[in-house]
Protein backbone atom coordinates (compact mmCIF):
# COMPACT_ATOMS: atom_id res chain seq x y z
CA UNK A 1 0.00 0.00 0.00
CA UNK A 2 2.85 2.37 0.85
CA UNK A 3 4.52 1.68 -2.49
CA UNK A 4 1.27 2.36 -4.33
CA UNK A 5 0.95 5.55 -2.31
CA UNK A 6 4.43 6.60 -3.40
CA UNK A 7 3.51 5.95 -7.04
CA UNK A 8 0.30 7.98 -6.70
CA UNK A 9 2.25 10.82 -5.08
CA UNK A 10 4.70 10.75 -7.95
CA UNK A 11 1.82 10.65 -10.43
CA UNK A 12 0.62 13.98 -9.07
CA UNK A 13 3.97 15.54 -9.91
CA UNK A 14 3.87 14.03 -13.40
CA UNK A 15 0.41 15.49 -14.01
CA UNK A 16 1.67 18.95 -13.04
CA UNK A 17 4.72 18.75 -15.29
CA UNK A 18 2.66 17.26 -18.12
CA UNK A 19 0.57 20.42 -18.08
CA UNK A 20 3.55 22.20 -19.65
CA UNK A 21 3.34 20.06 -22.77
CA UNK A 22 -0.33 19.13 -22.90
CA UNK A 23 -1.88 22.53 -22.31
CA UNK A 24 -1.06 25.89 -23.79
CA UNK A 25 -3.38 28.22 -21.87
CA UNK A 26 -2.46 29.45 -18.42
CA UNK A 27 -5.85 28.47 -17.02
CA UNK A 28 -5.58 24.89 -18.26
CA UNK A 29 -2.10 24.59 -16.81
CA UNK A 30 -3.35 26.01 -13.53
CA UNK A 31 -6.14 23.40 -13.43
CA UNK A 32 -3.81 20.50 -14.20
CA UNK A 33 -1.25 21.67 -11.67
CA UNK A 34 -3.87 21.92 -8.94
CA UNK A 35 -5.12 18.46 -9.89
CA UNK A 36 -1.59 17.11 -9.65
CA UNK A 37 -1.14 18.68 -6.23
CA UNK A 38 -4.38 17.14 -5.00
CA UNK A 39 -3.33 13.71 -6.26
CA UNK A 40 0.05 13.98 -4.52
CA UNK A 41 -1.50 15.09 -1.24
CA UNK A 42 -4.00 12.24 -1.53
CA UNK A 43 -1.13 9.80 -1.95
CA UNK A 44 0.66 11.06 1.16
CA UNK A 45 -2.25 11.67 3.50
CA UNK A 46 -4.62 9.02 2.21
CA UNK A 47 -2.31 6.14 1.39
CA UNK A 48 1.28 6.30 2.65
CA UNK A 49 0.55 7.59 6.14
CA UNK A 50 -2.31 5.14 6.85
CA UNK A 51 -0.13 2.28 5.58
CA UNK A 52 2.55 3.16 8.12
CA UNK A 53 -0.01 3.73 10.89
CA UNK A 54 -1.27 0.15 10.65
CA UNK A 55 1.43 -1.10 13.00
CA UNK A 56 1.90 2.11 14.95
CA UNK A 57 3.47 1.76 18.37
CA UNK A 58 0.41 3.20 20.14
CA UNK A 59 -1.88 0.54 18.68
CA UNK A 60 0.11 -2.29 20.29
Amino acid at each position, binding site marked *: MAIIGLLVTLLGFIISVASLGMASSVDAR*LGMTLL*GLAVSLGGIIGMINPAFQKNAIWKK
Partner: protein
Amino acid sequence: MRKLHRSSLLLVTAGILLWTSLTWAQPAAPAPAAPAPAAAPAAAAPAPITVDDLKGVTAPTAEKRAAGDPDGALTGTVADVVVADTKAGLTIADLANQAGQNRVAINFVWTLVCGFLVMFMQAGFALVETGLCRAKNANHTMMMNFMVYGVGLAAYWLIGFAIQMGGVGALGTLGGTPVLNGEYSITLFDKAFGLWGQQGIMLGGTTYDVAVMVMFLFQMVFMDTTLTIVTGTAAERWRFSTFLVSSFFMGALTYPMFANWAWGGGWLALLGGNFGLGHGYADFAGSGVVHSVGGITALALGIIVGPRIGKYNRDGSPNPILGHDIVIVLTGCFILAFGWFGFNPGSTLAASGNGALRIGSVAVNTMLAGMTGAFGAMFYMWGRYGKPDASMTGNGLLAGLVAITAPSGFVNPMSSVIIGLVAGLLVCLSVEFVDRVMRVDDPVGAISVHGANGIWGVIAVGLFADGKSNYGGSWNGVAGSVTGLFYGDTGQLVAQLIGVSTLVGLVFVWSFGLNWILDMTMGQRVSAEVELEGLDIPEMGALGYPEFELKPQSINTH
Protein backbone atom coordinates in the same frame (compact mmCIF):
# COMPACT_ATOMS: atom_id res chain seq x y z
CA MET B 1 -19.04 34.14 25.61
CA ARG B 2 -15.50 35.41 26.16
CA LYS B 3 -14.26 32.94 23.55
CA LEU B 4 -16.92 34.16 21.12
CA HIS B 5 -15.82 37.73 21.79
CA ARG B 6 -12.19 36.86 21.10
CA SER B 7 -13.08 35.04 17.91
CA SER B 8 -15.09 38.02 16.72
CA LEU B 9 -12.14 40.31 17.36
CA LEU B 10 -9.88 38.02 15.36
CA LEU B 11 -12.33 37.87 12.46
CA VAL B 12 -12.76 41.65 12.38
CA THR B 13 -8.98 42.15 12.46
CA ALA B 14 -8.46 39.66 9.66
CA GLY B 15 -11.22 41.34 7.64
CA ILE B 16 -9.64 44.77 7.99
CA LEU B 17 -6.25 43.44 6.92
CA LEU B 18 -7.71 41.62 3.92
CA TRP B 19 -9.56 44.75 2.82
CA THR B 20 -6.41 46.82 3.21
CA SER B 21 -4.48 44.28 1.19
CA LEU B 22 -6.95 44.31 -1.67
CA THR B 23 -6.92 48.10 -1.63
CA TRP B 24 -3.16 48.00 -2.01
CA ALA B 25 -3.45 45.40 -4.69
CA GLN B 26 -5.61 47.55 -6.97
CA PRO B 27 -3.69 49.03 -9.85
CA ALA B 28 -3.31 52.76 -9.35
CA ALA B 29 -5.80 54.87 -11.29
CA PRO B 30 -4.12 56.50 -14.23
CA ALA B 31 -3.17 60.08 -13.53
CA PRO B 32 -4.92 62.72 -15.62
CA ALA B 33 -2.99 63.47 -18.74
CA ALA B 34 -0.60 66.30 -18.13
CA PRO B 35 -0.32 69.08 -20.70
CA ALA B 36 2.40 68.39 -23.17
CA PRO B 37 5.57 70.18 -22.15
CA ALA B 38 7.06 72.78 -24.39
CA ALA B 39 9.71 71.37 -26.64
CA ALA B 40 12.93 71.38 -24.66
CA PRO B 41 16.35 71.57 -26.18
CA ALA B 42 17.88 68.16 -26.62
CA ALA B 43 19.97 67.27 -23.57
CA ALA B 44 23.67 67.06 -24.31
CA ALA B 45 25.15 63.57 -23.85
CA PRO B 46 27.38 63.38 -20.76
CA ALA B 47 30.97 63.92 -21.75
CA PRO B 48 33.33 61.01 -21.13
CA ILE B 49 36.03 61.49 -18.51
CA THR B 50 39.32 62.69 -19.93
CA VAL B 51 42.83 63.03 -18.58
CA ASP B 52 42.11 66.72 -18.05
CA ASP B 53 39.47 65.85 -15.47
CA LEU B 54 42.17 64.31 -13.27
CA LYS B 55 44.29 67.42 -13.19
CA GLY B 56 42.38 68.99 -10.32
CA VAL B 57 42.41 65.81 -8.24
CA THR B 58 44.99 66.04 -5.49
CA ALA B 59 45.84 63.89 -2.51
CA PRO B 60 46.08 65.37 0.99
CA THR B 61 49.57 66.64 1.72
CA ALA B 62 51.93 64.66 3.89
CA GLU B 63 51.86 67.42 6.50
CA LYS B 64 48.09 67.25 6.77
CA ARG B 65 48.12 63.44 7.04
CA ALA B 66 50.82 63.56 9.69
CA ALA B 67 48.49 65.59 11.92
CA GLY B 68 45.98 62.73 12.06
CA ASP B 69 42.42 62.60 10.70
CA PRO B 70 39.93 62.94 13.55
CA ASP B 71 36.95 63.78 11.31
CA GLY B 72 37.73 61.28 8.54
CA ALA B 73 38.01 63.89 5.80
CA LEU B 74 41.52 62.85 4.74
CA THR B 75 41.01 59.08 4.75
CA GLY B 76 39.79 57.37 1.59
CA THR B 77 40.82 59.81 -1.10
CA VAL B 78 42.51 59.61 -4.46
CA ALA B 79 45.65 58.68 -2.53
CA ASP B 80 44.05 55.32 -1.78
CA VAL B 81 43.33 54.45 -5.40
CA VAL B 82 45.60 51.65 -6.55
CA VAL B 83 47.80 52.84 -9.41
CA ALA B 84 48.93 50.25 -11.95
CA ASP B 85 52.03 52.11 -13.04
CA THR B 86 53.53 54.56 -10.58
CA LYS B 87 55.58 56.22 -13.30
CA ALA B 88 52.50 56.97 -15.37
CA GLY B 89 50.58 58.12 -12.30
CA LEU B 90 46.83 57.93 -11.86
CA THR B 91 44.93 57.05 -15.05
CA ILE B 92 41.31 56.69 -16.05
CA ALA B 93 41.85 52.94 -16.19
CA ASP B 94 43.01 52.97 -12.56
CA LEU B 95 39.81 54.74 -11.51
CA ALA B 96 37.58 52.40 -13.51
CA ASN B 97 39.27 49.30 -12.10
CA GLN B 98 39.02 50.65 -8.57
CA ALA B 99 35.30 51.41 -9.01
CA GLY B 100 34.66 47.92 -10.31
CA GLN B 101 36.60 46.27 -7.53
CA ASN B 102 34.85 48.43 -4.93
CA ARG B 103 31.47 47.25 -6.17
CA VAL B 104 32.44 43.61 -6.13
CA ALA B 105 34.16 44.03 -2.75
CA ILE B 106 31.00 45.52 -1.26
CA ASN B 107 29.03 42.58 -2.63
CA PHE B 108 31.59 40.05 -1.40
CA VAL B 109 31.60 41.46 2.12
CA TRP B 110 27.82 41.77 2.21
CA THR B 111 27.29 38.21 1.03
CA LEU B 112 29.90 36.78 3.38
CA VAL B 113 28.68 38.63 6.47
CA CYS B 114 25.11 37.58 5.70
CA GLY B 115 26.37 34.01 5.33
CA PHE B 116 28.00 34.26 8.76
CA LEU B 117 24.64 35.36 10.20
CA VAL B 118 22.89 32.40 8.60
CA MET B 119 25.54 30.07 10.01
CA PHE B 120 24.71 31.35 13.49
CA MET B 121 21.10 30.25 12.94
CA GLN B 122 22.34 26.73 13.65
CA ALA B 123 22.66 27.82 17.28
CA GLY B 124 19.07 29.06 17.22
CA PHE B 125 17.77 25.79 15.80
CA ALA B 126 19.76 23.85 18.39
CA LEU B 127 18.25 25.82 21.26
CA VAL B 128 14.68 25.67 19.92
CA GLU B 129 14.78 21.94 19.28
CA THR B 130 16.55 21.02 22.49
CA GLY B 131 14.26 23.19 24.60
CA LEU B 132 11.17 21.60 23.07
CA CYS B 133 12.46 18.11 23.88
CA ARG B 134 12.71 16.45 27.27
CA ALA B 135 15.80 16.87 29.45
CA LYS B 136 16.67 13.17 29.13
CA ASN B 137 17.34 13.72 25.39
CA ALA B 138 19.13 17.08 25.61
CA ASN B 139 22.63 15.82 24.76
CA HIS B 140 21.35 13.75 21.83
CA THR B 141 19.25 16.56 20.37
CA MET B 142 22.03 19.10 20.79
CA MET B 143 24.59 16.78 19.20
CA MET B 144 22.37 16.20 16.16
CA ASN B 145 22.10 19.96 15.68
CA PHE B 146 25.83 20.32 16.21
CA MET B 147 27.02 17.58 13.89
CA VAL B 148 24.52 18.30 11.14
CA TYR B 149 26.73 21.28 10.39
CA GLY B 150 29.82 19.16 9.78
CA VAL B 151 28.03 16.35 7.95
CA GLY B 152 26.22 18.78 5.69
CA LEU B 153 29.36 20.76 4.96
CA ALA B 154 31.30 17.62 4.03
CA ALA B 155 28.56 16.37 1.71
CA TYR B 156 28.07 19.75 0.10
CA TRP B 157 31.79 20.27 -0.47
CA LEU B 158 32.20 16.80 -1.95
CA ILE B 159 29.38 16.95 -4.49
CA GLY B 160 26.36 18.97 -3.32
CA PHE B 161 27.60 22.37 -4.42
CA ALA B 162 28.51 21.06 -7.86
CA ILE B 163 25.05 19.55 -8.34
CA GLN B 164 23.35 22.76 -7.21
CA MET B 165 25.46 25.51 -8.72
CA GLY B 166 27.76 23.77 -11.18
CA GLY B 167 25.84 25.07 -14.17
CA VAL B 168 24.56 28.40 -12.95
CA GLY B 169 26.76 30.44 -15.29
CA ALA B 170 28.29 33.81 -14.52
CA LEU B 171 27.79 35.16 -11.01
CA GLY B 172 26.95 38.70 -12.04
CA THR B 173 27.01 40.52 -8.71
CA LEU B 174 30.11 38.64 -7.57
CA GLY B 175 32.27 39.53 -10.51
CA GLY B 176 30.80 37.61 -13.39
CA THR B 177 33.03 34.55 -13.05
CA PRO B 178 31.86 32.11 -15.74
CA VAL B 179 33.53 28.93 -14.44
CA LEU B 180 30.31 27.31 -13.17
CA ASN B 181 29.16 26.43 -16.66
CA GLY B 182 28.31 22.73 -16.75
CA GLU B 183 24.55 22.21 -16.47
CA TYR B 184 23.33 18.79 -17.59
CA SER B 185 20.01 19.12 -19.43
CA ILE B 186 17.51 16.94 -21.22
CA THR B 187 14.97 18.01 -23.84
CA LEU B 188 11.32 17.76 -22.88
CA PHE B 189 8.41 19.35 -24.75
CA ASP B 190 11.09 20.73 -27.14
CA LYS B 191 12.66 22.74 -24.33
CA ALA B 192 15.84 22.34 -22.31
CA PHE B 193 15.25 20.98 -18.82
CA GLY B 194 18.31 21.61 -16.66
CA LEU B 195 18.69 18.81 -14.12
CA TRP B 196 22.04 19.15 -12.33
CA GLY B 197 25.31 21.01 -12.41
CA GLN B 198 28.68 19.40 -13.09
CA GLN B 199 31.34 21.95 -12.11
CA GLY B 200 32.73 22.52 -8.64
CA ILE B 201 33.23 19.04 -7.19
CA MET B 202 35.38 19.60 -4.07
CA LEU B 203 35.93 23.16 -5.32
CA GLY B 204 38.70 21.94 -7.58
CA GLY B 205 39.94 22.86 -11.05
CA THR B 206 38.76 26.18 -12.42
CA THR B 207 36.33 26.62 -9.53
CA TYR B 208 39.29 27.53 -7.29
CA ASP B 209 38.03 31.08 -7.74
CA VAL B 210 37.31 33.95 -5.34
CA ALA B 211 33.70 34.48 -6.45
CA VAL B 212 32.95 30.76 -6.30
CA MET B 213 34.25 30.65 -2.72
CA VAL B 214 31.86 33.39 -1.66
CA MET B 215 28.99 31.65 -3.41
CA PHE B 216 29.92 28.32 -1.83
CA LEU B 217 29.93 29.68 1.71
CA PHE B 218 26.61 31.44 1.30
CA GLN B 219 24.87 28.49 -0.35
CA MET B 220 26.35 26.01 2.10
CA VAL B 221 24.85 27.62 5.18
CA PHE B 222 21.45 27.63 3.47
CA MET B 223 21.76 23.93 2.79
CA ASP B 224 22.64 23.30 6.42
CA THR B 225 19.51 25.11 7.55
CA THR B 226 17.49 22.60 5.55
CA LEU B 227 19.21 19.64 7.17
CA THR B 228 18.68 20.86 10.71
CA ILE B 229 14.91 21.17 10.19
CA VAL B 230 14.60 17.41 9.96
CA THR B 231 16.34 16.70 13.27
CA GLY B 232 13.48 18.43 15.13
CA THR B 233 10.76 16.16 13.80
CA ALA B 234 12.67 12.95 14.46
CA ALA B 235 14.04 14.08 17.82
CA GLU B 236 13.89 11.87 20.92
CA ARG B 237 13.86 8.60 18.94
CA TRP B 238 16.24 8.91 15.96
CA ARG B 239 19.26 6.61 15.95
CA PHE B 240 22.34 8.85 15.83
CA SER B 241 24.27 6.78 13.27
CA THR B 242 21.32 6.73 10.88
CA PHE B 243 20.87 10.46 11.36
CA LEU B 244 24.45 10.97 10.14
CA VAL B 245 23.94 8.92 6.98
CA SER B 246 20.51 10.38 6.22
CA SER B 247 21.81 13.93 6.64
CA PHE B 248 24.79 13.21 4.41
CA PHE B 249 22.56 12.10 1.53
CA MET B 250 20.29 15.08 2.05
CA GLY B 251 23.21 17.51 1.87
CA ALA B 252 24.77 15.71 -1.09
CA LEU B 253 21.69 15.00 -3.20
CA THR B 254 18.20 15.97 -2.00
CA TYR B 255 18.75 19.64 -1.27
CA PRO B 256 21.17 20.35 -4.15
CA MET B 257 18.84 18.68 -6.64
CA PHE B 258 15.86 20.95 -5.94
CA ALA B 259 18.11 23.98 -5.37
CA ASN B 260 19.58 23.48 -8.84
CA TRP B 261 16.16 23.48 -10.42
CA ALA B 262 15.20 26.69 -8.62
CA TRP B 263 18.47 28.62 -8.24
CA GLY B 264 21.09 26.88 -10.33
CA GLY B 265 19.60 27.52 -13.75
CA GLY B 266 17.51 24.33 -13.73
CA TRP B 267 14.13 23.64 -15.27
CA LEU B 268 11.94 25.33 -12.65
CA ALA B 269 13.81 28.60 -13.06
CA LEU B 270 13.29 28.35 -16.82
CA LEU B 271 9.51 27.97 -16.71
CA GLY B 272 9.22 31.65 -17.62
CA GLY B 273 11.60 31.68 -20.58
CA ASN B 274 10.53 28.27 -21.89
CA PHE B 275 6.79 28.25 -21.26
CA GLY B 276 5.80 31.87 -20.66
CA LEU B 277 4.91 31.29 -17.02
CA GLY B 278 5.80 34.65 -15.47
CA HIS B 279 9.46 34.77 -14.51
CA GLY B 280 9.65 31.05 -13.85
CA TYR B 281 9.66 29.61 -10.36
CA ALA B 282 10.71 32.54 -8.15
CA ASP B 283 11.94 31.86 -4.63
CA PHE B 284 13.93 34.84 -3.41
CA ALA B 285 15.58 33.34 -0.32
CA GLY B 286 14.22 29.83 -0.06
CA SER B 287 10.75 29.29 1.41
CA GLY B 288 10.60 26.38 -0.99
CA VAL B 289 14.25 25.55 -1.62
CA VAL B 290 15.30 25.61 2.03
CA HIS B 291 12.27 25.35 4.28
CA SER B 292 9.86 23.23 2.27
CA VAL B 293 12.55 20.75 1.30
CA GLY B 294 13.37 20.46 5.01
CA GLY B 295 9.73 20.30 6.09
CA ILE B 296 8.73 17.79 3.41
CA THR B 297 11.65 15.54 4.31
CA ALA B 298 10.70 15.92 7.97
CA LEU B 299 7.19 14.71 7.11
CA ALA B 300 8.58 11.69 5.26
CA LEU B 301 10.86 10.81 8.16
CA GLY B 302 8.15 11.47 10.74
CA ILE B 303 5.90 8.91 9.04
CA ILE B 304 8.68 6.34 8.81
CA VAL B 305 10.10 6.71 12.32
CA GLY B 306 6.68 6.84 13.99
CA PRO B 307 5.50 8.68 17.12
CA ARG B 308 7.25 8.68 20.49
CA ILE B 309 6.10 6.21 23.10
CA GLY B 310 3.28 7.81 25.06
CA LYS B 311 2.40 10.39 22.43
CA TYR B 312 -0.84 8.66 21.45
CA ASN B 313 -3.37 6.69 23.43
CA ARG B 314 -4.87 3.46 22.11
CA ASP B 315 -7.88 5.39 20.80
CA GLY B 316 -5.52 7.59 18.78
CA SER B 317 -5.97 10.71 20.90
CA PRO B 318 -2.73 12.66 21.42
CA ASN B 319 -1.01 13.48 24.70
CA PRO B 320 1.06 16.63 25.01
CA ILE B 321 4.72 15.90 25.72
CA LEU B 322 6.14 19.10 27.10
CA GLY B 323 9.63 20.39 26.37
CA HIS B 324 11.98 21.01 29.25
CA ASP B 325 13.08 24.64 28.78
CA ILE B 326 10.89 27.34 27.27
CA VAL B 327 13.59 29.89 28.07
CA ILE B 328 16.06 28.45 25.57
CA VAL B 329 13.22 27.89 23.08
CA LEU B 330 12.40 31.60 22.91
CA THR B 331 16.09 32.56 23.06
CA GLY B 332 16.59 30.30 20.06
CA CYS B 333 13.69 31.98 18.25
CA PHE B 334 15.34 35.36 18.78
CA ILE B 335 18.64 34.06 17.43
CA LEU B 336 16.83 32.70 14.39
CA ALA B 337 15.04 36.02 13.81
CA PHE B 338 18.43 37.76 13.99
CA GLY B 339 19.98 35.30 11.55
CA TRP B 340 17.09 35.79 9.15
CA PHE B 341 18.49 39.26 8.45
CA GLY B 342 21.31 37.41 6.75
CA PHE B 343 19.04 34.87 5.14
CA ASN B 344 16.71 37.20 3.23
CA PRO B 345 18.58 40.45 2.57
CA GLY B 346 21.75 38.47 1.86
CA SER B 347 19.97 36.67 -0.96
CA THR B 348 20.46 39.72 -3.16
CA LEU B 349 24.09 38.50 -3.25
CA ALA B 350 24.84 42.20 -3.54
CA ALA B 351 24.61 45.52 -1.78
CA SER B 352 25.74 47.56 -4.76
CA GLY B 353 24.23 47.67 -8.23
CA ASN B 354 21.54 45.52 -9.90
CA GLY B 355 18.75 46.86 -7.72
CA ALA B 356 20.49 45.62 -4.60
CA LEU B 357 19.50 48.69 -2.63
CA ARG B 358 16.24 46.84 -1.99
CA ILE B 359 18.10 45.16 0.87
CA GLY B 360 16.35 47.64 3.18
CA SER B 361 12.92 46.61 1.88
CA VAL B 362 13.81 42.95 2.16
CA ALA B 363 14.93 43.39 5.78
CA VAL B 364 11.81 45.35 6.74
CA ASN B 365 9.53 42.84 5.03
CA THR B 366 11.28 40.11 7.00
CA MET B 367 10.81 41.70 10.38
CA LEU B 368 7.19 42.67 9.68
CA ALA B 369 6.17 39.16 8.68
CA GLY B 370 7.88 37.70 11.73
CA MET B 371 6.00 40.11 13.93
CA THR B 372 2.56 39.35 12.47
CA GLY B 373 3.34 35.64 12.48
CA ALA B 374 3.95 35.79 16.22
CA PHE B 375 0.77 37.82 16.75
CA GLY B 376 -1.28 35.47 14.59
CA ALA B 377 -0.20 32.38 16.50
CA MET B 378 -0.44 34.03 19.91
CA PHE B 379 -3.97 35.31 19.39
CA TYR B 380 -5.07 32.01 17.85
CA MET B 381 -3.85 30.07 20.87
CA TRP B 382 -5.22 32.66 23.28
CA GLY B 383 -8.63 32.55 21.63
CA ARG B 384 -8.80 28.78 21.26
CA TYR B 385 -7.15 27.56 24.46
CA GLY B 386 -7.40 30.54 26.80
CA LYS B 387 -3.65 31.31 27.14
CA PRO B 388 -1.02 32.86 24.84
CA ASP B 389 1.06 29.71 24.47
CA ALA B 390 4.76 30.59 24.43
CA SER B 391 6.11 27.77 22.27
CA MET B 392 3.43 28.27 19.62
CA THR B 393 4.02 32.02 19.67
CA GLY B 394 7.68 31.30 18.99
CA ASN B 395 6.66 28.95 16.19
CA GLY B 396 4.40 31.72 14.87
CA LEU B 397 7.38 34.05 14.64
CA LEU B 398 9.34 31.40 12.76
CA ALA B 399 6.35 30.62 10.52
CA GLY B 400 6.07 34.28 9.52
CA LEU B 401 9.78 34.37 8.76
CA VAL B 402 9.61 31.15 6.75
CA ALA B 403 6.64 32.39 4.74
CA ILE B 404 8.21 35.75 3.86
CA THR B 405 11.49 34.16 2.80
CA ALA B 406 10.43 33.54 -0.82
CA PRO B 407 8.43 36.74 -1.33
CA SER B 408 10.67 39.09 0.70
CA GLY B 409 12.39 40.49 -2.38
CA PHE B 410 9.23 40.93 -4.44
CA VAL B 411 6.49 42.32 -2.18
CA ASN B 412 5.61 45.51 -0.32
CA PRO B 413 5.39 45.94 3.47
CA MET B 414 1.59 45.61 3.65
CA SER B 415 1.70 42.30 1.82
CA SER B 416 4.42 41.15 4.21
CA VAL B 417 2.15 41.90 7.14
CA ILE B 418 -0.62 39.77 5.60
CA ILE B 419 1.70 36.94 4.58
CA GLY B 420 3.07 36.78 8.13
CA LEU B 421 -0.35 36.89 9.75
CA VAL B 422 -1.65 34.08 7.58
CA ALA B 423 1.49 32.10 8.43
CA GLY B 424 0.90 32.57 12.16
CA LEU B 425 -2.61 31.17 11.86
CA LEU B 426 -1.60 28.47 9.40
CA VAL B 427 1.10 27.07 11.67
CA CYS B 428 -1.43 26.51 14.47
CA LEU B 429 -3.95 24.85 12.16
CA SER B 430 -1.25 22.72 10.56
CA VAL B 431 0.15 21.58 13.93
CA GLU B 432 -3.35 20.46 14.93
CA PHE B 433 -3.83 18.66 11.60
CA VAL B 434 -0.48 16.87 11.72
CA ASP B 435 -0.91 15.99 15.39
CA ARG B 436 -4.56 14.95 15.50
CA VAL B 437 -5.58 13.94 11.98
CA MET B 438 -2.38 12.52 10.49
CA ARG B 439 -1.06 11.39 13.89
CA VAL B 440 2.50 12.18 12.89
CA ASP B 441 4.50 13.06 15.98
CA ASP B 442 6.51 16.25 15.41
CA PRO B 443 8.02 17.38 18.75
CA VAL B 444 9.01 20.83 17.49
CA GLY B 445 6.36 21.50 14.83
CA ALA B 446 8.94 21.55 12.02
CA ILE B 447 6.57 20.05 9.44
CA SER B 448 4.13 22.90 10.01
CA VAL B 449 6.61 25.74 10.52
CA HIS B 450 8.85 24.89 7.59
CA GLY B 451 6.83 22.56 5.35
CA ALA B 452 3.37 24.11 5.37
CA ASN B 453 4.56 27.70 5.66
CA GLY B 454 7.35 27.20 3.16
CA ILE B 455 4.72 26.17 0.65
CA TRP B 456 2.58 29.15 1.66
CA GLY B 457 5.55 31.44 1.05
CA VAL B 458 6.09 30.02 -2.44
CA ILE B 459 2.42 30.53 -3.29
CA ALA B 460 2.50 34.03 -1.78
CA VAL B 461 5.04 35.10 -4.42
CA GLY B 462 2.51 34.14 -7.08
CA LEU B 463 -0.14 36.21 -5.34
CA PHE B 464 1.52 39.29 -3.83
CA ALA B 465 4.62 40.09 -5.96
CA ASP B 466 4.00 43.71 -6.89
CA GLY B 467 6.19 44.11 -9.97
CA LYS B 468 8.24 46.87 -8.38
CA SER B 469 11.48 44.98 -7.79
CA ASN B 470 14.26 45.27 -10.33
CA TYR B 471 17.33 43.14 -9.92
CA GLY B 472 19.32 44.12 -12.97
CA GLY B 473 16.20 44.38 -15.14
CA SER B 474 15.24 40.70 -15.22
CA TRP B 475 14.66 37.59 -13.13
CA ASN B 476 15.48 34.08 -14.31
CA GLY B 477 16.33 35.54 -17.69
CA VAL B 478 12.90 37.09 -18.22
CA ALA B 479 12.89 40.87 -18.57
CA GLY B 480 10.89 42.92 -16.10
CA SER B 481 9.84 42.37 -12.52
CA VAL B 482 8.21 39.39 -10.84
CA THR B 483 4.46 40.07 -10.68
CA GLY B 484 1.83 38.00 -8.91
CA LEU B 485 -1.84 37.29 -9.53
CA PHE B 486 -3.11 40.29 -7.56
CA TYR B 487 -1.03 42.54 -9.78
CA GLY B 488 -2.02 40.91 -13.04
CA ASP B 489 0.16 37.84 -13.83
CA THR B 490 -1.59 34.48 -13.43
CA GLY B 491 1.33 32.72 -15.11
CA GLN B 492 3.60 33.48 -12.16
CA LEU B 493 1.17 31.72 -9.82
CA VAL B 494 1.19 28.64 -12.08
CA ALA B 495 5.00 28.59 -12.03
CA GLN B 496 4.93 28.74 -8.25
CA LEU B 497 2.38 25.93 -8.03
CA ILE B 498 4.46 23.71 -10.30
CA GLY B 499 7.28 24.30 -7.82
CA VAL B 500 5.00 23.28 -4.96
CA SER B 501 3.91 20.18 -6.87
CA THR B 502 7.57 19.26 -7.36
CA LEU B 503 8.15 19.58 -3.63
CA VAL B 504 5.10 17.57 -2.61
CA GLY B 505 5.16 15.02 -5.44
CA LEU B 506 8.84 14.47 -6.17
CA VAL B 507 10.99 15.67 -3.26
CA PHE B 508 8.70 13.84 -0.84
CA VAL B 509 8.90 10.58 -2.78
CA TRP B 510 12.69 10.86 -3.08
CA SER B 511 13.15 11.63 0.63
CA PHE B 512 10.71 8.96 1.68
CA GLY B 513 12.37 6.32 -0.50
CA LEU B 514 15.84 7.22 0.72
CA ASN B 515 14.89 7.11 4.39
CA TRP B 516 12.81 3.98 3.94
CA ILE B 517 15.85 2.19 2.54
CA LEU B 518 17.90 3.42 5.51
CA ASP B 519 15.16 2.19 7.84
CA MET B 520 15.31 -1.28 6.29
CA THR B 521 19.11 -1.43 6.28
CA MET B 522 20.30 0.52 9.34
CA GLY B 523 17.11 1.12 11.30
CA GLN B 524 15.88 4.63 11.94
CA ARG B 525 14.50 4.22 15.43
CA VAL B 526 16.10 3.37 18.76
CA SER B 527 14.67 0.56 20.86
CA ALA B 528 11.75 1.16 23.24
CA GLU B 529 14.07 0.64 26.22
CA VAL B 530 16.47 3.31 25.00
CA GLU B 531 13.62 5.68 24.26
CA LEU B 532 12.11 5.29 27.72
CA GLU B 533 15.48 5.72 29.42
CA GLY B 534 16.31 8.73 27.29
CA LEU B 535 18.77 8.79 24.41
CA ASP B 536 21.55 10.66 26.20
CA ILE B 537 23.28 7.75 27.92
CA PRO B 538 22.58 4.89 25.45
CA GLU B 539 23.31 6.89 22.29
CA MET B 540 25.76 9.57 23.43
CA GLY B 541 27.30 8.18 26.60
CA ALA B 542 26.59 11.22 28.76
CA LEU B 543 23.63 13.13 30.12
CA GLY B 544 22.91 16.64 28.94
CA TYR B 545 22.24 17.66 32.55
CA PRO B 546 24.12 15.21 34.81
CA GLU B 547 23.15 17.00 38.02
CA PHE B 548 19.42 16.88 37.28
CA GLU B 549 17.22 14.22 38.81
CA LEU B 550 15.20 12.92 35.88
CA LYS B 551 11.71 11.62 36.56
CA PRO B 552 10.86 8.21 35.06
CA GLN B 553 8.43 8.45 32.15
CA SER B 554 4.82 7.56 32.85
CA ILE B 555 2.71 6.38 29.97
CA ASN B 556 -0.96 7.12 29.67
CA THR B 557 -2.52 4.15 27.89
CA HIS B 558 -6.21 4.55 28.51
